[in-house]
């Protein structure tokens, strides 16, 4: 097995006439943290949705840890070890915080009962408190339903969900967009912990400071295509640099044909 | 005294005539409190209504049974409270306890009378060599409908009437409006036909309306039904409708209330009272005009 844990080849997605993602060739190595940046509507979340099996791609191929994968749905992706914080958060509004945190992989008792096995509410509540504390969010009553949570609280629940389970690849789509100053700092700490543990991460973010603080490499999307691949570990690139790729003032040498 | 009555359905034409007749009759009897419930064609609901009556301590119960094959369950639900079946004959008629009785008609007569008369008319019209027509069924789950249709087939099975052929038979759910549409659908095939037999008057009227709307001459078609409702008789008077069968609402209604009262009083009653159907044609329709 090579070092490449995720690779896409000509990954493409059309929605009717909208070409949201075109010929994306993307690679990332073990332990690497990569940021995806780009304008609104540039195709970042579309890219995430194709990798995680939420949607079926129009064309192209995807490899995970060297194996070609064709996820029929998000369940497959999760089983293959991909943990994702979606931009839409994917929370069930009528359920409370622990229910959402453990949705799809509840802690249970009497497992021989199959689908009718019992929920271990107590254990889940406890684990929820711990998970939430890592994000620094304050939620007065975790037994309130998600629909009653503030924007930032919702986002923290989604992040805590991902951070609670070990994974082979973590993807976060704008995880701190709705977070306050403190909570953002905490979530960034979670990301640093992942880095230390050698767990790879894809971070979609519009926050230049955050990206420069956290990741090794920035991939820029523009109009549905990848237009730059910038290694930022050695300080070759500044924030303004990245902005000019985002806006189209510059294009990465190897991508010029594409655009 | 208190009598509780449950009817298979309230929104049925002929049963309403029966039902309203019973209310009127009950009002003429001193000291009788008479209460009626709608089973809405739901057998279980009817059984429960009987139990509700018992829980309220009524003195007698009258049942127009939803499903004639459920006599045993209904009879059992009443316990010791006197009970009279009206209009429809329960299948346990021979095992009724002493506290129960029935006053009803025999559906074998209704369909047979109507179909046989049509058969004779067709012969008289010179169609004895072969006549084709349609049969409209009432609600398929209703036993009066099943029986009346079977009667028709039995008549056609007889030597005298086997010149008749049914082109198609379909349900119009007792309803005039559905019968109109069904008849129009049939006519749209362009196939010639000589008679229409319906399980009740409403459907026969619907068929007549559809045929007239299509410009047919009603003299060319024999139409038969059951009930002798007022709408039907007026249609007969206009020369559109040929044969129907009179079902005696007053006889059945008053008969059942009187039987109930006698059961309450502990008197002896005839446990089986059959109220006969009567054939109605333009010749004798005058006798029935203000009956149903």
């Amino acid at each position, binding site marked *: 097995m090579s070092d490449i844990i995720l690779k896409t080849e000509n990954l493409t997605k*059309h929605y*009717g*006439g*909208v*070409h*949201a993602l*075109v010929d994306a060739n993307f690679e990332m190595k073990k332990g690497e943290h990569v940021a995806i940046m780009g*304008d609104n*509507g*540039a*195709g970042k979340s579309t890219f995430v949705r194709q990798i995680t099996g939420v949607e079926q791609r129009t064309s192209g191929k995807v490899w995970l840890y060297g194996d070609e994968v064709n996820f029929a749905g998000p369940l497959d992706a999760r089983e293959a070890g991909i943990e994702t914080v979606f931009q839409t958060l994917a929370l069930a509004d009528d359920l409370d915080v622990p229910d959402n945190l453990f949705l799809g992989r509840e802690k249970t008792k009497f497992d021989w009962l199959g689908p009718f096995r019992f929920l271990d509410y107590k254990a889940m509540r406890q684990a929820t408190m711990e998970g939430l504390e890592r994000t620094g969010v304050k939620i007065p009553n975790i037994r309130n339903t998600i629909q009653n949570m503030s924007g930032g609280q919702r986002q923290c629940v989604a992040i805590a969900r991902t951070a609670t389970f070990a994974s082979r690849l973590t993807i976060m789509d704008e995880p701190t967009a709705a977070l306050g100053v403190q909570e953002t700092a905490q979530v960034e700490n979670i990301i640093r912990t992942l880095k230390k543990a050698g767990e790879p991460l894809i971070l979609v973010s519009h926050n230049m400071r955050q990206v420069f603080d956290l990741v090794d490499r920035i991939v820029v999307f523009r*109009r*549905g295509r990848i237009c730059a691949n910038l290694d930022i570990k050695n300080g070759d690139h500044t924030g303004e640099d990245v902005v000019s790729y985002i806006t189209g003032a510059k294009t990465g040498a190897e991508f010029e044909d594409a655009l | 005294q208190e009598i509780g009555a449950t009817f298979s*359905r*309230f*929104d*049925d*034409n002929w049963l*309403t*005539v029966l*039902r*309203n007749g019973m209310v009127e009759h009950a009002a003429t009897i001193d000291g009788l409190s008479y209460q009626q419930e*709608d089973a809405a064609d739901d057998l279980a609901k009817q059984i429960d209504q009987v139990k509700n009556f018992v829980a309220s301590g009524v003195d007698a119960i009258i049942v127009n049974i939803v499903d004639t094959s459920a006599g045993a369950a209904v009879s059992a639900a009443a316990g010791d409270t006197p009970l009279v079946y009206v209009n429809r004959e329960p299948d346990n008629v021979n095992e009724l306890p002493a506290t129960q009785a029935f006053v009803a008609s025999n559906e074998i007569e209704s369909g047979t009378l109507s179909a046989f008369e049509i058969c004779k008319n067709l012969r008289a019209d010179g169609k004895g060599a072969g006549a084709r027509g349609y049969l409209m*069924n009432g609600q*398929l789950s209703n036993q009066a409908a099943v029986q009346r249709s079977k009667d028709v087939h039995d008549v056609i099975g007889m030597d005298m009437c086997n010149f008749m052929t049914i*082109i*198609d*038979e*379909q*349900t119009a759910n*007792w*309803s*005039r*409006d559905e019968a*109109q*549409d*069904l008849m*129009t*659908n*049939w*006519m*749209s*095939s*362009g196939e010639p036909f000589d008679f229409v037999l319906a399980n009740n008057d409403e459907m026969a*009227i*619907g068929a007549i*309306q559809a045929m007239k*709307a*299509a410009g047919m001459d009603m003299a060319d078609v024999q139409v038969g039904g059951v009930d002798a409702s*007022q*709408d039907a008789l*007026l249609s007969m*008077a*206009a020369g559109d409708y040929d044969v129907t069968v009179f079902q005696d609402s007053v006889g059945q209604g008053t008969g059942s209330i009187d039987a109930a009262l006698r059961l309450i009083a502990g008197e002896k009653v005839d446990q089986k009272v059959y109220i006969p159907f009567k054939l109605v044609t333009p010749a004798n329709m005058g006798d029935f*005009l*203000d009956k149903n």
Partner: protein
Amino acid sequence: MTDTSHGTGGLTFDKTKRSWPNELNILFALFVIIAIFEVLGQMLPYMNDQSFLFDTRDRFDSIFNEARLKIIILQVAIIGIIALGVTQVIITAGIDLSSGPLVAATAMIAMSFGQTELVNGFANPKALFGPWAMDLPVIVPVVVGLAFGAFIGAINGTFIAYMRIPPFIATLGMFLICRGIALWWSGGNPISFPTDGFKWIGSGMMPVVWFLSLAVVFHVIMRYTVYGKHTYAIGSNEEAARMSGINVKRHKVTVYVIASMLAAFAGVVLAAKSETAQAGMGEFYELFAIAMAVIGGISLQGGRGSIIGTVLGAMVLGVIRSGFTYIKLDGSYQLMAMGSIIIAAILFDQYRQRNRA
């Protein structure tokens, strides 16, 4: 190829790949169903080479079997009128179960002001009121019927919008109440023998005329007016509609009033067509009206659906009914076949939609 005339740019947008309107799928399904009946008609041994839609008999001399074309739509016209209103209600994410019984109650009430005094020279045996209510101009029963419908709709709407009773419950309650009213109005007795003017409303192809003209009117309203837009907005996201400053409550009342008036009008037409009004009328009409809308592609979650879809949904049901009579299918099989065809039509619709995505 980049064409930004539909937006502010960004991605490549290929204008030629328009989204395929859902209604076209249903139309397609309709043709498939017709074709199936046509083929069956040729194949079944007892059918004597009849055709379903075409004229093969000497009696007629046109291309199509006009009688069949007419009955196909005639038999769904009345429920179709109800479905026009039900469509609007469902677009708001509501439901109206009361329409069937409302048809019955309105038929009874309207007919009591539309009776004629003399039938073939006999006094009208079913006269409900005295001579004062006999032989009134046709406008009277119609207005009475519509007013009754508006009244019921206003109650439905008020309960649902202002008192937040779930639509299912409010209209289920009204379902029972209207059935009760129909039974109580004349003690369950049918009310028959209308005036000629009243009969006219339901005579011949008039039900179809009403259905199609109302469909056109409401198509325009739903598509091109503020009323229509707000109806969709409420069903799509009621909270957002409210936050955007739409008077959601008042609007919902209007929608239910319109729906009930359409159902009431259907009751008037039905009474006129059958020349009688009976308490048992309109049974299951609410279900079939909803079915028409759903076959027409509406979503019960609200926000989606169209009048054209509903009209096509009605046509599907009409074709199926006539088709069954045409191939002389027995009653118990008809129900099974009808059920299967409804499912198959939608399956087909789903399939085409997915293949285009």
